[in-house]
């Protein structure tokens, strides 16, 4: 089993079929990497969402504590 093409240029050219072969491989690996990276993006979006949730929680709790403090002295 040895390398079928005599030079890199021939390897890229693949006697005329190169564009099709490399286009097919290129699109395939691009889509697959996009698919593989998608969870990482979702993780970042979830983290931002959670932080936003915690900020809302914190603000709601502070409003409640302020309201109860005002109610007490009355």
């Amino acid at each position, binding site marked *: 089993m040895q390398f079928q093409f005599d030079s890199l240029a021939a390897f890229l050219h693949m006697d005329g079929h190169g564009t099709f072969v490399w286009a097919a*491989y290129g699109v395939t690996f691009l889509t697959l990497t996009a*698919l593989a990276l998608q969870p990482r993006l979702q993780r970042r979006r979830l983290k931002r969402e959670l932080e936003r949730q915690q900020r809302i929680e914190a603000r709601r709790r502070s409003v409640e504590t302020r309201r109860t403090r005002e109610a007490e002295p009355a």
Partner: protein
Amino acid sequence: MAWQWFHRLGSPRWFYQKTSAWMPWLALASLLLIGAGSIWGLGFAPEDAKQGNSYRIIYIHVPAAFLALAGYYIMAISGAIGLIWKMKLSFVVMRAAAPIGAVLTFIALFTGAVWGKPTWGTYWVWDARITSMLILLFLYIGVIALSRAFSREQVADKACALLALVGTVNIPIIYKSVDWWFTLHQPATIKFTEKSSIDPSMFYPLLTMVIGFYCLYAWTLIAHTREKILQREWRTSWVQQLMGGESATESKAG
């Protein structure tokens, strides 16, 4: 012991922790196999007598086509497990499998079309395999569209599981009827990917690529499932701990 394992598999947290260990190895295996397989197929395998070098696309077209169909069955089976044993985790696996299967079907179609150009001169050939693959893509799109339509996750899961089951029953019928339809309107050209006895020098790279694609599929499915688990279980303390911990390390590292 098996029943207990099956029961514990139901808990998303257990699944999340268990798979954390597997992920790096699975990723490594798929990268190695796909890398070696494509270099082997592109550079070292002999070219085809009739089709010349364009046939090298077979090394990604065939694995993608395999997985597109297998992916649908995996999606349908996990949906069925969810419906029968009411296991939320298998619904999550099903919801993760749908887009992955659709992408693989698209890849199979795209590579098939690009391969058709040098072989037949046109990008789109109404060959039996390619037409069935197109209908499979529509089946996937139907499941994904249905899953997006419901406001309540639990109902969406059950509806998609049922649609996937109905699809599975219909796939063999669709494939057979398309084959019959294709032989009826048989153009004079050769059948597209006939199962001619492929000689060993082309078979081994293809086998490596198929196994590599299966590992990649498994890795992607688990990765997507883990993300969906976090999204669905964000209220639980173990997720908030996990996310909290991670942002802490990130802020330290950032």
